[in-house]
């Protein structure tokens, strides 16, 4: 037997031994797993999971419901604020319009007063001319009466 043959034989022996140990290991594990006492661990874990699932589901449902209610309330509040703001703006506009109207009236009165005052008052610089006009008018009226 040469060196490579001997090495191959050794290797085969090792592989055979390893496979035999592997089988023995799987057998031992399998037997132990089959003979282990059956405890309702899975059921308990399943029940716990079920309860946790329900709790989570309820929490999600409650959260979405409260979210929807809050959103609805929020929309209502926003609508109420918008309506109040619109009413306030309308009132302010009406008030402004009435104020402008009354202001316009008072301006007109003022202008009329000014016009009448101006028409009545004669500037000092025109006084001699006015007197002359008065005199001339009087003279003209006298001569007219005399000719009659």
């Amino acid at each position, binding site marked *: 037997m040469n060196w490579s043959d001997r090495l191959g034989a050794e290797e085969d022996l*090792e592989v055979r031994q*390893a496979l035999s140990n*592997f089988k*023995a*290991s799987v*057998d031992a594990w399998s037997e132990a*797993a089959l003979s282990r006492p059956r405890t309702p661990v899975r059921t308990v874990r399943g029940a716990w999971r079920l309860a946790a699932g329900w709790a989570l589901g309820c929490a999600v449902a409650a959260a979405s419901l409260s979210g929807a209610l809050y959103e609805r309330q929020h929309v209502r509040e926003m609508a109420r604020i918008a309506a109040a703001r619109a009413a306030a703006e309308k009132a302010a506009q009406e008030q402004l319009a009435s104020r402008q109207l009354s202001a316009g009236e008072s301006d007109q009165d003022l202008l009329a007063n000014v016009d009448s005052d101006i028409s009545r008052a004669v500037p000092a610089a025109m006084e001699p001319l006015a007197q002359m006009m008065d005199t001339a008018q009087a003279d003209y009226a006298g001569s007219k009466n005399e000719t009659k």
Partner: protein
Amino acid sequence: MRRGETSTKSMAAGTAIQPMTAGAAKGIAAQDFSSVVETHRPQIFRFLLASLRDVDLAETLTQECFLKAHRNWSRFRGDSSPMTWLMRIAINLQKDHWRNRRLQFWRTTRANAVDIDEAGDWLPSGERTAEQQLLAREQVVQVWKAVDRLSERQRTVFLLRYVEERELSEIAQATGLSEGTVKAHLSRALGKVRAELRGKR
């Protein structure tokens, strides 16, 4: 495509039970199903445990296997041995399981699977010395590592041969492959085990 591959693909499409033609095994057909369960349950469980490395999953699939076998027991006519028939159901269930797991890609595939080192801890104490035990444990871990790297088909063939100690013809029947394909898979699987053991030295 080879004949063996075709038959395996058609088998992978579901857990179809091998249709049994009329055979000479009237005795087997009359056999009480409970005795079949009692006889073959440890082997089916062992094969599934070695394939999946998950005790709970192996138990579940073993139960499913016998449930399917019970439903189709009247159709079993004994062309193959009950063990081969059951093994075929188990292999199909395992394939279905892996395919479903692959679809559920967000889950970890081996959520409850035992670690290789942990699987290697199982050794019969026997009459060995501590040193021999240690060496055996090392070898078992190396083989588990190699098995972990095998393809699904190679692993199935390897486990049926070296853990269940089935004949090549039985493996061919159970897997739906030809004997030549089984031999090829075994050879490749052994090559990987050998390489793993060589790498350790």
